[in-house]
């Protein structure tokens, strides 16, 4: 028995070593040197050895009692869809605490951390928006960044040409982005899966290329400046630039550049909360159910009279609107926009947030957005290996939790207590008689 295990461990180690040698051999073993290349195979052997040692350690740890328990915990939990039982404690108190803690964050965080928090919230918004399209309606959209760009450029160009401020852009953005969502949705209504993904990918690139090449209108690669936000005409700059009064003069306090970020954070936080609430409501409304139904089975939907044009269109448009709002916040936070912020990599990152979070799960998306923005910051010390570590973590995640961080919870049905009682009363005599 013991021998048997040792043999399989040895076999595994050799296999790992060979595979990593094949992988790392050409990548780090051969170094381009002018027109020829140098042989540095020693390096790849070292790398392969490190990986093999790691693999053996993981296997050994997995064989120990603690490891076994840990593994079963990690893999078996949350593998299916859970349904609320109606017996759960009301989440109101923890939610209220979270809400207040979130609001109070700027008072405890330094500028650097606040910046990350704002970024995390922006990705929350993007994730929530794409979650409607991909997670709920099941339409694979690889060009979501387009709507993000529309929101951001709306503020920048709207200010430049029409004198729009932060608040008006915030109101217009969902409509404009929704309109773009509709433009995209109409041609792809009949498409599924891969084809849909490719068309949306193209759409995202088209928007970026237009922003990049329409020099006279968008400023091209040079980008466009974005005005600072205002609050009831009060400005967050040192001196008034938009015809208002600087807020520090109005309040009689000394100027600090942080006020602007506090303000953005608080508004953004409230918007994220509102969107989470809206998505939560939508999921239990007929429209939300139709999205999910369409994702699961189009034939059944057809026979039930689900209007799939309307259903798909609304998913695209609402998702796009949310993306547009995120764009406005991104622009106002950066103070400047240019097309390099809206590459395919962004779309992929947002999609990663949705998939990692567990398709369709709001809590999961929020968690994933936070993890995926904070993680790269924590990994700053690893400099150029950052992306590699990031990738490895994603792969590991998908192996251990293939259905995302948080599995979908279905709303159990809680009819209002009195109507339920009413039915029970009416049914009682019937069922009695039936027996």
């Amino acid at each position, binding site marked *: 028995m013991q021998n048997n295990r040792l043999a399989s461990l040895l076999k595994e180690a050799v296999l790992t070593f060979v595979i990593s040698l094949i992988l790392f051999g050409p990548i780090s073993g051969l170094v381009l040197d002018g027109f020829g290349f140098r042989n540095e195979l020693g390096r790849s052997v070292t790398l392969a050895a490190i990986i093999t040692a790691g693999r053996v350690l993981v296997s050994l740890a997995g064989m120990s009692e603690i490891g076994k328990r840990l593994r079963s915990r990690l893999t078996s939990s949350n593998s299916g869809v859970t349904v609320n039982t109606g017996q759960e404690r009301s989440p109101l108190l923890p939610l209220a605490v979270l809400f207040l803690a979130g609001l109070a964050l700027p008072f405890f965080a330094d500028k650097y951390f606040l910046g990350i928090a704002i970024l995390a919230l922006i990705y929350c918004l993007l994730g929530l928006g794409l979650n409607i399209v991909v997670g709920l309606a099941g339409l694979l959209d690889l060009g979501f960044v387009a709507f993000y760009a529309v929101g951001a450029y709306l503020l920048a160009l709207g200010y430049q040409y029409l004198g729009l401020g932060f608040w008006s852009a915030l109101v217009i953005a969902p409509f404009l982005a929704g309109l773009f969502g509709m433009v995209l949705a109409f041609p792809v209504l009949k498409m599924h899966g891969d084809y849909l993904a490719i068309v949306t990918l193209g759409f995202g690139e088209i928007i970026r290329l237009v922003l990049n090449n329409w020099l006279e209108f968008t400023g091209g690669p040079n980008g466009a400046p974005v005005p600072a936000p205002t609050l009831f005409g009060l400005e967050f700059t040192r001196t008034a630039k938009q015809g208002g009064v600087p807020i520090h003069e109005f309040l009689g306090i000394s100027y600090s550049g942080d006020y602007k970020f506090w303000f953005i954070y608080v508004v953004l936080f409230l918007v994220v909360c509102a969107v989470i609430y809206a998505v939560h409501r939508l999921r239990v409304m*007929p429209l939300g159910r139709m999205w999910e139904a369409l994702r699961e089975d189009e034939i*059944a939907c057809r*026979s*039930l009279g689900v209007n799939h044009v309307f259903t798909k269109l609304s998913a695209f448009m609402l998702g796009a609107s949310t993306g547009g709002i995120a764009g406005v916040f991104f622009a106002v936070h950066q103070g400047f926009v240019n097309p390099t912020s809206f590459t395919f990599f962004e779309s992929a990152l947002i999609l990663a947030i949705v998939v990692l979070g567990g398709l369709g799960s709001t809590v999961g998306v929020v968690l994933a957005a936070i993890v995926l923005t904070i993680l790269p910051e924590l990994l700053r010390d690893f400099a150029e290996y950052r992306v590699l570590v990031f990738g490895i973590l994603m792969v590991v995640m998908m192996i251990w939790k293939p259905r995302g961080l948080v599995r*979908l919870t279905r709303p159990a049905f809680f*009819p209002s207590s009195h109507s339920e009682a009413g039915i029970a009363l009416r049914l009682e005599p019937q*069922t009695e008689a039936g027996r």
Partner: protein
Amino acid sequence: MSTTETTAGPLLQFESVHAHYGPVEALKAVDVQISKGEIVSLIGANGAGKTTLLATIFGAPRTSSGRILHRGEDISTLPTNRISRRGIALVPEGRQIFQDMTVEENLMMGTTPIGMGHFEEDRAQMFDLFPRLKERRSQTAGTMSGGEQQMLAIARAMMARPELILFDEPSLGLAPLVVKRVFEVLAEIAAMGKTIFLVEQNANHALKLSQRAYVMVNGRIHLSGESAALLDNAEVRKAYLGLH
């Protein structure tokens, strides 16, 4: 007598309907009539075109020629989401319920054509008809047994308060006892005054339940008549009942 019943003529009528999947002709000049209150069955071998016939009612595929008349009105060109609002419901083949949704949510989806106005009342009725669904109301549909899923598919169709219900092989893949229960349920539903069009491989059960029947072969209606007569028909007995 109400006015709808004085306008004599079938509730649903196929008039020499043809349908294609690309170059393949799946339906060839099909004529079928279903009158209000009837139970009509359609039997045929695998690939005969039975599912296709039901699918043309919902516009996928659309008919390439011929008409589908519902109360005398051609519905073959209507947008698909308008069909179910006319009181036609389908229990699809292979019980295509929404796997990741709970039983309750599946029932809610069933109300799509008429809205949630009668939901609680109709749900109570369905829970009476299918007590198992009541036990499983908060379970995700995909985790239920095949028989329970079939019951859910039927209940979901009933939630739209349809006048005409189309069943596509409701006994598919179920144990004999459960098949028996399914046919009992069909009889109960008929007793509620619903019109039933039943597509089945299980010819014995289908012919015993229905009043009239059609036999489909290779996309054509090959035989039709009283179910009782077809049960005695030598060809039917040989090909579909496995008797001699």
